[in-house]
């Protein structure tokens, strides 16, 4: 490296961008921290349309990413991002976020809709979304304490047919009205 009189520093030798040759492959934290700009630090989201990932079940996180990658699950940006990762990386990120501590979002909810949603939940959803949506079952996600806006977008995608449902889910969900679905979203958002 040499210093010019004008103050500009000019490298005499190699200037090509280098990477450390001995670096280990990306860790779960390295992979997952990159998501936090949109999903919040350690997966605690502050944006109503972005789901919180902290404390979500690993299986559901991994299934979501695989669905985004294959295009089976509709998305705006997530499909493009998911294509950048391997299944092993989905696994690492799923593990990372499932271990973070969730913080329920502070949001305005409609009490009448919550009550109606609870009834719909008990009749149509409770078999898979167990413990009022607080616990995962198989690859069903935890839906309790999620952002309302995020759940509403998912309900829209189901109702419009954009997001495919497996048979059992479709059987329970198809008879429900848009109002029912919105009420269920309010209910799950309200569960602490």
């Amino acid at each position, binding site marked *: 490296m040499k210093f010019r009189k004008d103050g500009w520093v000019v490298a005499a030798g190699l200037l090509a961008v280098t*990477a450390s040759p001995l670096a280990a492959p990306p860790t779960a934290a390295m992979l997952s921290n990159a998501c936090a700009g949109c999903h919040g630090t350690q997966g605690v989201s502050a944006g109503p349309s972005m789901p919180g990932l902290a404390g979500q079940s690993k299986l559901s996180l991994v299934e979501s990413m695989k669905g985004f990658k294959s295009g089976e699950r509709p998305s705006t940006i997530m499909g493009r991002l998911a294509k950048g990762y391997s299944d092993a990386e989905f696994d690492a990120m799923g593990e990372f976020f499932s271990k973070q501590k969730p913080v329920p979002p502070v949001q305005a909810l409609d009490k009448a809709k919550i009550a109606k949603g609870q009834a719909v939940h008990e009749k149509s959803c409770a078999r898979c979304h167990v413990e009022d949506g607080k616990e995962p079952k198989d690859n069903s996600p935890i839906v309790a304490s999620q952002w309302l806006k995020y759940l509403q977008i998912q309900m829209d995608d189901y109702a419009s047919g954009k997001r495919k449902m497996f048979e059992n889910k479709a059987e329970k969900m198809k008879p429900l009205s848009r109002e029912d679905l919105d009420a269920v979203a309010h209910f799950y958002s309200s569960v602490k």
Partner: protein
Amino acid sequence: MTVDRRNFLKMLGAGAGVSALQGCAGPAPMVAASGGEIMPKSGRRVVVVGGGYGGTIAAKYLRMLDASIEVVLIERNRQFVSCPFSNLVVGGIRQMSDLTIGYDKLASNHGIKMLYGEVTAIDAAAKTVALAAGTLKYDRLILSPGIDFRFEELAGYDPATTPDVMPHAWKAGPQTELLRRQLLAMKDGGSVVITLPLAPYRCPPGPYERANMIALYLKQHKPKSKVIILDANPDITSKGGLFRKGWAKHYPGMITYRGASKVTAVNARNHSVLIEGVEEVKADVINVIPPQRAGNIAVKAGVVGPDMKWCPVNATTFESTLAKDIHVIGDSCIAGAMPKSGYSANSEAKIAATNIVALMNGRETIEISGINTCYSFISEKEAVSVAAVYKVANNAIVSVPNSGGVSPDLSELEAVYAESWLRNILTEMSS
């Protein structure tokens, strides 16, 4: 124009810069700070310069990853105003307060020591930074200073006065508000010129989004007016197809795009710019976005490369290839395929923090995995995005093949997500 010593000092604003540069050059001592050492160092310390999209996140993640390292974040201003979404303020659909955050919660939540002041010099050999109040020692230094301008490439441009007449609004804050006021004061039937430099510059799609937001305001309030984009690049540098589609759909006949139209001179008195030294274009409102370089403090630290614009860094640690123990992140650095965007800076900050902690603890460094997501508004309700995942291949940062890309179409849902993008990223920076 070549940068000789006189011009170089002028563009740095002279003053303390003179001594600092002599410091870089070797024989002369570093500028003596008035107050001696401030905040004497006892344990291990990282100093972060610049509290924007990169610096806040670097400081926070350093503390999250190793609370035994003291972190000092130095920032000029008490509040930070986001460049992303500032075009929406120009267009009148967001307020400055939507984009403004403070540092108190970030500092108290993570035990970051905030130091408000301007760094005037950096001594890479002595590992000190100088402020008016005194000097500060570091073990490692992170520079996240954003951009400064290559004003000297625009004939007739006076850095002291031209921005008051022809705002750049490329650092959010008073310049954003000035551009907005000029639009409000303009007559119906007036013309607005936006000029942008050759890439790379901060926020590739930003100037075109700005045209959208200005046109949105004009369409509603001054429909006989025009927007002219004078682009130094041969074609739209980002999301080109989507912007063209948006212009045809929402602002037909209102936006004129001219590629390969590099502005080489400005005339504030005439309210005109000169394309390639030949064609004079007059307008009522002129938004001159000058060519850019790494923030001035990066120049003073001696970490700007031979292009005299940007800072070459190691693609794993973001350590400067020109100065040991100084890391450069955000718009100032050359990060391979990662664009000069807020989200890139966020991602780079976490990578740098991870590997600085590894290096300071004698552990193996970790290969990068990074993301960029960037939204641009087309209208009040529609937005588009570009997204990518980054990794290292052959010692360079590349976009993971067959991933990423731009939106298939204009989207109302993407405008909804864009809003949450802003809330999340500003929350991450401020808490």
